[in-house]
């Protein structure tokens, strides 16, 4: 009997902990590398996978690099070539991190909160630590997280003639928007 109760308790606890982890497969990641010389290098990816664990503060997102949709076919082609993202060799980009001020965010109370996020961003096969703030909006059972940050592409081994010529930003802006229901 004791074993049955213990097993039941464990199953319940495991189930409860899983329930804290929220996942969306329709997060949006925007990429903006436009400069004064060129307004074309910007794209959006609407099929990113993102997760948020409201209990531990663990956050993550991942994208298929070729899912970035540009307005211009030639720029999209350049973006995926070996000179840029080399997406045949490095098909995914990922972020894994955590909210460091979890106590400040009341996931059970509607409101807008500022989250400090730190973690590792892997891009072009290179992993670098990233620290940034994110806005967390709690509205009933829906949690929307938004984070804007810039990366230095050279840190990730992304170089190229267009970057050197000033047609592509050396520190593009990345925006991640995830709605968890």
């Amino acid at each position, binding site marked *: 009997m004791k074993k049955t109760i213990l097993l039941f308790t464990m199953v319940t606890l495991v189930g409860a902990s899983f329930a804290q982890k929220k996942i969306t*497969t329709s997060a949006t990641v925007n990429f903006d590398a436009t400069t004064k010389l060129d307004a074309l290098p910007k794209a959006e990816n609407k099929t990113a*996978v993102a997760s948020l664990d409201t209990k531990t503060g663990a956050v993550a997102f991942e994208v298929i690099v*070729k899912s970035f949709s540009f307005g211009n076919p*030639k720029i999209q082609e350049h973006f995926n070539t070996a000179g840029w993202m080399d997406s045949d060799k490095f098909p*995914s980009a990922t972020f894994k991190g955590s909210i460091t001020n979890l106590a400040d965010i009341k996931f059970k109370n509607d409101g807008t909160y500022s989250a400090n996020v730190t973690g590792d961003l892997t891009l072009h096969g290179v992993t670098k630590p990233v620290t940034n703030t994110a806005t967390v909006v709690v509205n009933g059972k829906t949690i929307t997280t938004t984070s804007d940050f810039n990366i230095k592409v050279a840190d990730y081994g992304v170089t190229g003639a267009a970057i050197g010529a000033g047609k592509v930003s050396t520190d593009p802006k990345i925006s991640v928007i995830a*709605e968890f229901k």
Partner: protein
Amino acid sequence: MTGPEKRMKPWIKKILIMGLILLIGGCFAVWYIFTEKFSDTSKREAAFTVNAMDLIHEFEKYDSLSNKKYTEKIITVNGRVSETETADTTINIKMTDTTSGAYIIFAFQQQHLMEAKQIKEGDSVSIKGSCSGGTYSSILETEYITFKRCAVNK
């Protein structure tokens, strides 16, 4: 005095005209390439027409080969909608293998968002779009395949 030696030699003239034509042609080509936009997917011909579950199983079994075969090609996928996901003004449609959890997700071209919003869970649909490839998700621990610039086949 306007001697014949001041006139441009015919072969130089020809080269200059050819050069000018090439320059104008080159400028036009550059202008065309960098102002070109992706065409309406509904008007493009599909390279492959596949069943959703067959496509998922192909990616699960032969990920690398499938990526080479389908990525950046226009594909028509027929299948049953397992889920619709809305975010802000956009909508994505999913077709999921309930056994493994692997799925295909379709993001739509702006001009086809309204028709995508009419689709409901359980509907059998035909969707055409640009395959972005598939990979294993470490978050979901399953394979997923993404499509961009999709349109609903009518």
